[in-house]
């Protein structure tokens, strides 16, 4: 085999390797893109869950702070009453 033919084959091998490498790299990028897409979607879902959980906690807090409950605890459990006018001291 002549030297010229050998070098042509090597050139072809290199070109084909480059193409193959590019193909593999492109495929890897696409797979990574889809995978990251899944991860972003999952993170988005998790964020939505956390927001929903936070909202539910806010409602729970609002229920706990409702005047019905506070008055009930103050009057029944702590034996508290509304102060009378005589018990009110106006600070100068």
């Amino acid at each position: 085999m002549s030297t010229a033919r050998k070098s042509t084959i090597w050139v072809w091998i290199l070109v084909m390797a480059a193409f193959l490498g590019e193909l593999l790299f492109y495929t890897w990028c696409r797979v990574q893109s889809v995978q990251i897409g899944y991860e972003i979607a999952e993170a988005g879902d998790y964020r939505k869950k956390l927001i929903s959980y936070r909202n539910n906690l806010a409602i729970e807090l609002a229920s706990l702070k409702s005047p019905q409950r506070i008055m009930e605890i103050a009057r029944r459990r702590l034996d508290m009453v509304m102060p009378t006018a005589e018990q009110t001291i106006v600070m100068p």
Partner: protein
Amino acid sequence: MNASSKKYLRLRIVIVSAFLFLFLLTIGARSVYLQIMRREWLASQASSQVVREQVRVGKRGAILDRKGHEMAVSVEATSVAAYPLQISDATAAAPSLADALTLDAESLYRKISTARTFVWVKRQVTPRELDAVKRLNIKGVDFITEYKRVYPNKTLAAQLLGFTGIDGHGLEGLEFHYDRVLIGSRRERLVHKDALGRSIARAGTADAAGMRAEAAGGSIMLTIDHTIQYITETALEQAVAEFNAASGVAIVMDPETGAVLATACVPLFNPNVFGRYPEATWRNRAVTDSFEPGSTMKIFTAAAALSSGCCSPSTIFFCENGSYRIGGNTIHDTHPRGWLSLQQIIKYSSNIGVTKVIETVGAETLHSVIRRFGFGDQTGIDCPAETAGMVAPPSRWTRIDTGAISFGQGIAVSPVQLAAATAAIANGGRLMRPYVVDALIDSRGQVVERARPRLIQQAVPPETAETVKRILKTVITEGGTGVSAALEGYSVAGKTGTAQKIDPDGTYADGRFVASFVGFAPADDPAVVVLVIVDEPRAAHYGGTVAAPAFRRIVHDTLIYLDIPPDQRKTDLRVSLEKGVRG
């Protein structure tokens, strides 16, 4: 190999090569056709398999009280939907779905076996139901996130707040009135899904968080204070229960601005499960209903008399010893009285007395002053379905009508009108527009509009209002009809009312009354105007007995809560010398 064989071989090679070339050419041509000529169609076909259009409605805004406490909020809830065309075996799917969602299997089968592309199976399911349906893993069944309205304080201010329907639109109360502000905008967006139905985030599609923030509805901040609301509802509920009444209404208002601090209607209802309550309990009767006010109207008759210049508080009138005949009708007082001054007429709530007063002043003047206090017109409060009440023109008033209107019969007013008109007496004669929404807030939490107190008109001169205020203070003193409204440490001004109700045949009913009390405190520098109306009390029926104690409880607890210092030193115990004071 001979020459002919070689020739034959070459021919075969050429034929095969030509065939392969044609084959490659066909493939190439087809590729060009598909890639260039049909590119858009193919791309849309591919997209339709991975891209789905999703319609989302933004989160509904919250309703907050004046201190920012949540009174109505939206939370995420999942609804189950189906694409009937994608369900392969509806006969098998229906019973298992119905079992998981506690639905009727037959009607569910009819629903999911139709030719429609989309049907709701069940809206806003519980987490347990959701898990059960997910476990079934039926193809063609989808889960859609929606928002569910929640009222964390349950019955508190329920009639004012109203409620929303399953589609998130307001149906009653402020939810209905401010629906355009509260509702989140409807947006369509593209979502990428793989063959397994998993979401894939892609550049260029709507970011979920961004979309939600943009599409969320605005919030409203009320003038209502949830503690004062609770105080008011509790006191009114007690009064209705104690006197075995049909219903009750109470309003607490800031007389300077017209801001409504509380508005209560009993029986209460829970807007979280409004369907379990009768429709009659949903209405905000403080605004939508009118009633004959009875003797509370004497406040405005006195204002008419004083502003006309015909009378002073000490002008005396003969009260006919309890019975006064006008044509074929006779007006009675509960307790016979002789000569009384205008001040005493109001204090003892003499019907004959105010009739005599208005005969001196004239029907035109009374009508004019009543109208200046806003009766017969809507107040303009920002609540739906406000009634204007009913004030007939004076040309249609007979002599007995004029007398009856002067003590609050033959005229219809709404509770909010009566509270606003009394506030005008408390604040120096200025009739303020009542309002319940203090601010509109956008989805980012910024105040975009704040309500400003609005003067409707000067109802009477400040001096007249001041004189009426002084007269109303005497109602609470010994012998007056409103002694049960007296408070230790605070001066109070007010008026009782007891109105007979009308039967369907147009005559006054025996034993059916509306008991009321309207007043303000501290009398010299009023912080609150409070109106209490108890409808059809059975155990007693006088305003001074039924409504005044509830008024006292509301005013006492509210003034303490608002840190309003007492304006009076310790006073002697006041008692009524009369057992049945009609007023």
